[in-house]
């Protein structure tokens, strides 16, 4: 394989890796705030993409449709939290898994009933004249995806490190009871975290739709890969989630190059299972699996 080809696969890897990173970040935010693994996370990404397409089709400009999708999915995530997550916080892992799986069914079927079964796409954010980098071609949308994802990750880090609200969210992740004793309104923060998660998921969905299309059942695959990325980086660590996302994306893309495009997803899940079976605390993580 030539270096140009290798570079090509690398670019494709960091593109999908960006989306995995954002999805993994969503898992991590919710997990840290509530100890719940949201099995509907991928469906929120899907809803973002589908809503972007719908709003764009309704005549909104591309940026307006994108922002609209982000806002609507943030609201949907808040509603989802109120209905299907909050009543289950004290009920154990089994109930949480089943309820969020139920929510994933609701989102998926609702998307199918509203927008049909066909895969839909968006135009790229700024034309499709490819750029040439080191012999590899890069679509402008790739630059958008990677750039915006990195911007979102950096902004989030700043937010968590420097603002009072961000610090409060981190306090809740460490110990909800202690946080409450400090006067932090835990309930409202969980609502806020879900809004944030929905917005990040939708942003990922809207960005990737011009590249890989979106349909009502795209969510489960994206969710599984986001979880794989989060696990790879050690569940609970935002930095790990982002790195896990990029590692997964690049390994998967190289797998396409070296093995076969048909087995791309098999490779991703094999990695997930290998990590779960051999090192459930992830590459970067310190948290042991099963101890929650």
């Amino acid at each position: 394989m030539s270096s140009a080809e290798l570079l090509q696969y690398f670019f494709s890897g960091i593109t999908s890796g960006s989306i995995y990173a954002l999805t993994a970040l969503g898992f991590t935010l919710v997990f840290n705030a509530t100890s719940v693994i949201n099995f509907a996370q991928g469906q929120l990404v899907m809803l973002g993409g589908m809503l972007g397409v719908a709003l764009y089709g309704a005549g909104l400009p591309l940026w307006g449709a994108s922002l609209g999708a982000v806002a609507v999915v943030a609201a949907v995530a808040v509603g989802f939290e109120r209905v299907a997550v909050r009543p289950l916080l004290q009920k154990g892992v089994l109930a949480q898994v089943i309820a969020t799986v139920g929510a994933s069914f609701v989102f998926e079927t609702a998307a199918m009933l509203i927008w049909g079964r066909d895969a839909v796409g968006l135009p790229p954010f700024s034309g499709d004249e490819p750029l040439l980098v080191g012999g590899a071609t890069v679509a402008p949308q790739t630059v958008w995806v990677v750039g915006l994802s990195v911007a979102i990750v950096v902004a989030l880090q700043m937010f968590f490190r420097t603002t009072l609200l961000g610090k409060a969210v981190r306090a809740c992740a460490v110990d909800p009871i202690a946080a409450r004793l400090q006067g932090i309104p835990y309930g409202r923060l969980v609502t806020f975290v879900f809004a944030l998660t929905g917005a990040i998921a939708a942003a990922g969905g809207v960005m990737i739709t011009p590249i890989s299309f979106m349909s009502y059942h795209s969510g489960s695959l994206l969710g599984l890969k986001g979880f794989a990325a989060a696990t790879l980086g050690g569940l609970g660590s935002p930095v790990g989630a982002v790195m896990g996302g990029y590692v997964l994306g690049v390994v998967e893309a190289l797998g396409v190059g070296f093995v076969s495009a048909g087995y791309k997803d098999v490779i991703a899940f094999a990695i997930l299972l290998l990590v779960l079976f051999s090192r459930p605390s992830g590459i970067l993580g310190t948290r042991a699996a099963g101890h929650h």
Partner: protein
Amino acid sequence: MGAVNQFYRYLRKHAGFLIFAIVAMTIPAYVGDAYYLSLLAFTATRFMMALGLSLLLGQAGQISLGQAGFVGIGAYGSAIMTTRLGFDPWIAMVLAAVLSAAVAAVVGIPALRLRGYYLAMATLGVNEIIYLLLVRLKSLTNGTDGITGIPGLSFGALGLSGPKAYHLVAWGVALVMLRLSLNLSSSRVGRALRALSRSEAAAQSLGINVSYRKVQVFVMAAIFASIAGSFDAHYMRFVSPEAYTVTFSIILITGVIIGGLGSLWGAVWGTLAIVILPELLKRVHSDLTNLVFGVLLIAIMIFWQGRPRALGPALEKWRKMIGGRIRRGAS
């Protein structure tokens, strides 16, 4: 007198099972309609799948989102071995079940060390891999086109592809599985499973080999699912991969949850629910089913008190009442 008493004791103990068995086996005598007969045939195999899940989820408290993957191994194992290798359907069914058991053991031994959502994700991943392999291994599985021309079941020269003969065989096997599961549940193993579902540490300290028991029930559920998949393949004479996605795994979970996890009988009512509800909802809108299932899953979890309870326990009470009547009749 002793023999009569013993007979009554047997009846009392197994009244629920016997009544259910008689109803299940004699339904074709009153139902002639082909549509209802095919629904009943599907109920038999859905019941086998749900029963395994009920053991795993209801008794041992372990969640698998990958049951459809093992159904797929059974269905494709049977389809490939009968159409490509010319195996007898029964032998193909057994070999496919052995393969499913092997896959379940290989996956289950590491996966069942994990708890809660890790196990759920791992089994979901396994289901996705099995589905993707069914689609991608074209030379073996014929990809998304699926495999046609699968032979029907037969005993020697006696064909079992007629709906009523098939019904008896499928429900016969389902009832054997139910009896085995009920026996398991009321044995030391069943008590061990329920103990470990409450607290693995406590169960371990009582001398229960927790990891062995979990893998055992996981493998058993996979075998049930695989046999059900084989039956479906020989009944439909056709398999295609989209029947074995995670979506189907979740539908099976829905059945077990609707029926209630408190008792294995929940699998009966849950199976009826996931067979009948889609048929009723179809009259309103063809794609409404999964939306309703999703809402039901959330709603049942919200109203869950401790352990999920739904229809099962209420019917269990009736079973005990009937058992009591027979006992009083005997004295």
